[in-house]
């Protein structure tokens, strides 16, 4: 597409990057077809092509963001289905990241919206605070209906709905330390502890550590690591996101110095997409650019790493698994086959639900901030999953697990929990 920026505007490196992205878009409209919000709302403004155009118009005119643009950008799930679809290679992710930064810098949100977002940003990335909040939520649950009746408070109602009824006990796997390989060591990796996941489902990392150490891989959970920053990054709070990124880069580089790392293992694909992007996020920070790129290159989803270990074929288990590919897995990281191949090797029958490219509506804090669209996407996702008549559902992202679990009775697990079981670990609790 033609663009219209002055040389002065292009001196801003963020604008320069966005301009390059915009130039690649040929306005063919292919991306609209696979966009969950366009498919749901039927309005081009809520499609990738529409959003690209809104952003282009805003940036070209050097305008502060306004309520209309913000509405449509906020409705974007950042699922990146559009990026998978786009034949022209339009890097939508970095364009919308820029737009969100621009919104954060130039737009004052209405009070309740601001409050909700501040609360989320202040709580979710911190496991201690998050745990407390969830306990409080258990008490607040009876008020969910009431909250949802008052539009600006709807997100709080949605939060209460999503909060689990019972919180699992904190697990040792979340604590910093080294888990030595059983038998001869064939590799050494760091594991990202994460922020919300260890509070909601500590068994995911526990299973990962058990499985990897059993396979001869030493796993370290480094001291001092923080939330990957994805949450605030998607809110456009760039300074906060970059701060988190730098902290983690430092922690992991120290670990590399100490004992070498073959990979940084991530068990939540949402975090994976962000950590793999550290190199880009910190590209303008001369002190960190190189280090961050190194970390990004080491970041691996757990299934991506397991695929390199050449696991043996296991006997059939007589269980059918519907594999739900998280958007951050299939679109963000382009990991599509590895998890399914691993599950099949582990002896499960694997089904692909229809419309697998569509988001389940979880999308970070989306199910809290946009409960209506999120609910529609959840219902659609659950319907497609249930149509495959599975015994259980497997996926690689904690957000999807929480979201889908509130819509179906079929047990949903992280892929790695099933793999751990298949390769000598204990049967996941929900299945016994």
């Amino acid at each position, binding site marked *: 597409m033609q663009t219209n920026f002055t040389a002065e505007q292009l001196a801003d490196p963020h604008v320069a990057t966005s301009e390059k992205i915009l130039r690649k878009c040929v306005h063919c409209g292919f991306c609209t077809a696979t966009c969950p919000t366009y498919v749901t709302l039927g309005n081009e403004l809520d499609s990738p092509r529409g959003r690209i155009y809104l952003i282009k118009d805003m940036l070209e005119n050097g305008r502060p963001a306004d309520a*209309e643009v913000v509405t449509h950008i906020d409705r974007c799930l950042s699922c990146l289905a559009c990026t998978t679809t786009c034949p*022209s290679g339009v890097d939508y992710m970095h364009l919308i990241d820029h737009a969100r930064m621009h919104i954060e810098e130039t737009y004052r949100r209405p009070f309740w919206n601001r409050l909700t977002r501040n609360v989320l940003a202040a709580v979710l990335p911190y496991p201690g605070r998050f745990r407390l909040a969830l306990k409080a939520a258990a008490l607040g649950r009876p008020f969910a209906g009431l909250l949802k009746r008052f539009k600006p408070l709807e997100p709080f109602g949605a939060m209460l709905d999503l909060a689990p009824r019972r919180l699992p006990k904190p697990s040792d796997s979340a604590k910093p330390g080294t888990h030595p390989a059983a038998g001869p060591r064939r590799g050494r990796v760091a594991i990202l502890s994460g922020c919300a996941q260890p509070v909601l489902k500590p068994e995911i990392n526990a299973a990962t550590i058990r499985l990897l150490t059993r396979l001869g891989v030493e796993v370290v959970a480094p001291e001092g690591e923080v939330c990957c920053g994805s949450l605030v990054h998607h809110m456009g709070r760039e300074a906060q996101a970059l701060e988190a990124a730098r902290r983690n880069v430092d922690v992991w580089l120290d670990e590399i110095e100490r004992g070498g790392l073959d990979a940084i293992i991530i068990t939540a694909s949402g975090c994976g997409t962000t950590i793999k992007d550290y190199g880009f996020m910190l590209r303008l920070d001369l002190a960190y650019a190189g280090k961050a790129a190194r970390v990004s290159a080491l970041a691996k989803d757990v299934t991506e790493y397991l695929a390199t270990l050449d696991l043996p074929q296991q006997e059939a288990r007589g269980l059918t698994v519907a594999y739900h590919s998280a958007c951050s897995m299939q679109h963000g990281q382009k990991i599509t086959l590895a998890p399914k191949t691993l599950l099949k090797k582990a002896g499960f029958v694997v089904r692909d639900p229809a419309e697998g490219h569509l988001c389940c509506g979880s999308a970070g804090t989306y199910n809290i901030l946009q409960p209506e669209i999120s609910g529609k996407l959840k219902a659609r996702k659950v319907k497609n999953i249930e149509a495959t008549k599975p015994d259980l559902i497997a996926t690689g992202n904690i957000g999807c697990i929480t979201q889908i679990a509130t819509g179906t009775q079929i047990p949903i697990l992280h892929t790695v929990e099933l793999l751990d079981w298949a390769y000598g670990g204990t049967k996941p609790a929900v299945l016994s």
Partner: protein
Amino acid sequence: MDQIGFLEPRPAVLSRRREIVADLLDLLPEGCLVHQPRELVPFETDAFVSYRRLPLAVALPETTQQVAAVLKYCNRYGVPVVPRGAGTSLSGGAIPQEDAVVIGLSKMSRILEVDYANRTATVQAGVTNLNISDAVSADGYFYAPDPSSQLACTIGGNIGMNSGGAHCLKYGVTTNNLLGVKLVLVDGTIVDLGGKALDAGGLDLLGVVCGGEGQLGIVTEAIVRLIAKPEGARPVLFGFDNSEEAGACVTDIIGAGIIPVAIEFMDKPAIGICEAFAGAGYPMDVEALLIVEVEGSEAEMDAMLASIIEIAHRHGVKVVKESQSATEAALIWKGRKSAFGATGRIADYICMDGTVPLGQLSHVLRGTAEIVAKYGLRVANVFHAGDGNMHPLILFNANDPEDAARAEAAGNDILKLCVDAGGCLTGEHGVGIEKRDLMRHQYTDIDLAQQMAVRAAFDPQWLLNPSKVFPLEGRPAA
């Protein structure tokens, strides 16, 4: 680019903007009217992105009745209307104008009925082309016309442009697969044309509406023909040392009375672009590539392929490569169908759409290369060779106005070349605004007058998509 003009906006409409918006808000449910200036910007163009005009408002109705109500209102107050499907038109068919209300069908995207006994599907106009095939695929059926944009384009838009696609060589284009429509006339009257039966009595109005480019009414529902999937299908790649031999080979295949499902052509630049995107395994050391798809039983496919391979050898074919698996076949088509979009990775482009008699393929390919060279531009050719429907993609730099003007001029010369070779201005993308001013090169004034008379019979005030198809000068007074 600004060579192509639009009609002057009607002052009487522009001055009533506020009232019109208020009235439309009353006619439509919440969330179905876009009217904030900034929100209108993304609707200012379609896939012919070099031209842009802001609309007055965009209506996104959810029912046929709402379409009728908006049309009736606009007709009463003399407000132009531009129908819009997915906005993938390459000829600017869905580009609005300042005094027009866009009626977008994107919220009407349900499949209403699948009737296997009659082999038909009844769908709303905003359903995408691919959604129809997807909905019946598990039962062994598909909807045949397959524009490369089938993922996104709507059946309403396909009807508007009488769209074609790679597999239309055997199965025909939209008009051959359309059995009926629900059409809202400009005054809001709702009529049904055709039906599930293979033919309807009276004048072939359905045939007129299909390809009407949004000027005869708004389609809100369509009944389309479903076709049983063949037993098997196999795309085969044929690589040649030069484009002209590849073109001559196509001529001879069809000339021998062989009709494969598809014969697609790509030249070297196009092969490079598509391979980079899809990794389909196209041969890279050839100057031209044909993708020929045969279908049927194994024996039928083998027999047809043998004859085609023999012809190809007569034209010195360098590589013959059969797809070995369903995945490989899918990649071959993915690469081909993404060709235009993938071109965006290397440059801006405008996509031409001329049809020529098959015997003229080589001549027109050579002429195209000469024209583009004369303007100092580059071209990539990727097109439906079997039915002589050429799509030179003229590459240029959209941020350089002179380059853009050259591209447009080269495009015009190429289309004239097609017409002069005994062909036609458009094979499947429609006239839109892009080829509007070339219509005189193809038609006499008398021809045009007759066509305009038909148009005016549907829309006496020329309110429906009025800036398109017919040259602005020499129109009858509305």
